[in-house]
């Protein structure tokens, strides 16, 4: 059965201060619900977007969150992209592990509270299908994708 193809417009939310994270959470929830995710799934995607936005503030100086959709073999997917102007990851795969940063395990003795728990990206990995890292000349993009369960896709 053919699904109606209506490209969703890209929503961009600038992230410069902590209060912007609330806007990201609201935007992500609306976008997820509009795509047909359940309340609980939308809640999970809100967590994903929130973690990415907080990371922009913590490590990326400033940037933005873009919410869009992607069509693939698995149908329609929710896409959240975090663009920042901070340094790219040294080793992305290590950074994805809980209680690690991009250079290795975070030493609890020297970790500052402001660095957080080191589990933000772990959340992103656990609650999405795919996470990609695109290093750029002036920063980086972290992209997370989650497919809409086929039965409920709009």
């Amino acid at each position, binding site marked *: 059965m053919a699904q109606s193809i209506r490209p969703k417009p890209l929503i961009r939310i600038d992230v410069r201060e902590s209060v912007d*994270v609330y806007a990201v959470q609201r935007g992500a929830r609306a976008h997820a619900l509009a795509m047909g995710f359940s309340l609980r799934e939308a*809640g999970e995607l809100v967590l994903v977007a929130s973690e990415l936005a907080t990371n922009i503030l913590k490590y990326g100086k400033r940037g933005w969150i873009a919410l869009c959709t992607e069509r693939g073999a698995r149908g329609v997917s929710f896409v959240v992209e975090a663009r920042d102007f901070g340094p790219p990851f040294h080793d992305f795969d290590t950074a994805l592990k809980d209680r690690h940063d991009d250079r290795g395990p975070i030493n609890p003795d020297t970790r500052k509270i402001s660095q957080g728990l080191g589990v933000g990206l772990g959340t992103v990995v656990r609650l999405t299908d795919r996470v990609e890292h695109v290093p750029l000349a002036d920063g980086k993009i972290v992209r997370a994708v989650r497919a809409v369960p086929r039965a409920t896709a709009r």
Partner: protein
Amino acid sequence: MTTLDTDILESVTDALLVLSNVGMGDYSSRVTLPEEVKDSSLRALFEGINEMIRSLEQEKLKSDAYQKELEEKLATIEKQRVAIQELSTPIMEVWDGVLCLPVVGVMDTARSAEMTTALLHAVVEKKTRCCIIDITGIEVMDTGTADHFMRMARAVGMLGARCVLTGINPHIAQTIVHMGVDLSGIESHRSLRQALHAYVTSQKKQQQ
């Protein structure tokens, strides 16, 4: 050179000094010509310079006012940010030595970390004996955050207070169980009311 010429030269020198002051932000002086100077174009020029100084002064006053307003607004924004931070982690003393922390909204890792710091400080400061964390308002939690929550509950225990979780919804219960975390020592009740009731009852029993 006539006296008039000398006077005009002096006026020009003074005018240059005034303009130099204006350049440094001092708009208090004006350029003047002695009354004897009748040349209309010269008078017009000097009057023009004074007009210009007056309008620059106006602009500067306006700009200073905007600057002040902007600084006040930024200060307000900062105060509101602090208020939002405190409101998002309200810690209330609902009974003697009993703290209640109702959590609503999105529990991401940043909020979880902030909450832990605030809670542990409050437990020590208020000599808390029982800490009730109500998560009825939390829809979803990632396993990493749930793990952190459990550690926080244990930290509260180490500070000598009981830690009780209330309002755990079925999905979060599944998340916690799937983590395979040791839940001994962490009490759970369906609601804040039940948790409080259980605590008060246990206190009464102790006193008997």
